[in-house]
Each structure stands twice: as structure tokens, then as C-alpha cells.
């Protein structure tokens, strides 16, 4: 799972049947240099490419989420579903203390 802030939403007019009614969020992933502390989101976008994430938890723009990428993203579905990133958690607070040698 990676963390990122929700910067937008996507709606689809035509989809494969497995994804009808799905909610999609555009997420800018956090990097080590651009990370949330506590409940204050970092401003702006990170250098990582943003991605579209399937959402069944009800995330909204401005929230921080944890999203799972890869084959595991389609694990919650009964049928094989073409989803490669899924929202796994709506994050309340982050305690981040990067190690400085």
C-alpha cells in the first residue's frame, strides 16, 4: 500500500460491465520528500506520476488515502476485474519520522 492525496475524481460514461457504478479517484502518491505529517496534507503535487484508483470507501478530493497496487487490487472482487489500484484505507493521521543517519 502506498499513500497519496486525492486530487480529483473520474467518471466514466461507458465501462466494461464489471466496473459499472464504480467510483474513481485521481491520487498523487507521496514520496519521501513530499509526505504528510499528522493530519496536514503536503501542499502541491509530488514528483511521482498520479494515478486513478478504484474507490469503494468513499474518498473525496483533499483526503489522504492508502491504495494497493498490483494483482492484489482485484482480490476483493468476485469476478476477474480489470482494476490495478484500489483504495484500501481513508487515512486519518500519519506519524512520519524519516530516519536521518
Amino acid at each position, binding site marked *: *500500500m502506498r499513500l497519496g492525496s486525492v486530487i480529483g475524481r473520474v467518471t466514466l460514461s461507458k465501462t466494461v460491465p464489471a466496473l459499472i457504478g464504480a467510483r474513481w479517484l485521481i491520487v498523487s502518491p507521496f514520496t519521501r520528500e513530499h509526505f504528510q505529517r499528522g493530519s496536514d496534507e503536503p501542499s502541491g503535487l509530488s514528483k511521482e506520476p498520479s494515478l486513478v484508483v478504484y474507490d469503494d470507501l468513499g474518498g473525496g478530493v483533499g483526503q489522504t488515502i*492508502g491504495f494497493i497496487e498490483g494483482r492484489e487490487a482485484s*482480490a*476483493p472482487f468476485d469476478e476477474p476485474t480489470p482494476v490495478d489500484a484500489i483504495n*484500501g*484505507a481513508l487515512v486519518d*493521521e500519519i506519524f512520519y519520522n524519516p530516519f536521518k543517519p
Partner: protein
Amino acid sequence: MLDHGNPSLHHSITPRRHYSAVFLARVEGNLTATRKHPSFAGWRLIICQPISKDGVPEGVPQVAIDPHGAAMHQRVIISSDGLAARKAVGDNKSPARWMIIGIVDEKEGA
């Protein structure tokens, strides 16, 4: 085919690989989330920064479930084996993927 290539690519969004990976990482934080996939209920969610053999950060931080109780700035081994993570959380429809599989107490060699 296992192509470990450039380690920084392991965390980029492409290319997608269909095998699991095991990384040396350092614990750099944790998070709280009230609303989450039900399979994560009760699990510690730990922010793990993959590191090189010299401790230099590589790639983006990953959040892993922690069955072992790793402490801040401890070195750990994380695995991206989704099947093992689903077995650990006891839900075969869980999206869990990264899991702390061990805590490093010493490392030797280059």
C-alpha cells in the same frame, strides 16, 4: 522471468510485475485509518522505507501490515506476497499485499 534491474523501478507504477518481492526496509512511521478495508481491522499499518544494503533510501515508502511489532527506525524485511498477506489477515478477498515478515537484528557482508 526475474529481472531485478534498477531497484528504483520496483516502486514506480510501471512496469507491473506478477511475482512478489522481498525488500530490506526501515520503519519510518505509522498511520491511523478509521475507514479501511475490513481485513485491515486491528492490524498495525507501518510506513516502511525500502533501503539499500548501506541504509540509503530507495524508492517510495510502502505501508505494510505488521504481525511482529516492529519499532521506529528498526530494519525489517517486507514482502509483497499477496497470498501470504491474505492468509495472515484471514480473508481471502483482502487487498493486503505488503507485510513485515521479519525484524533484522544484524546484517553481514556486502
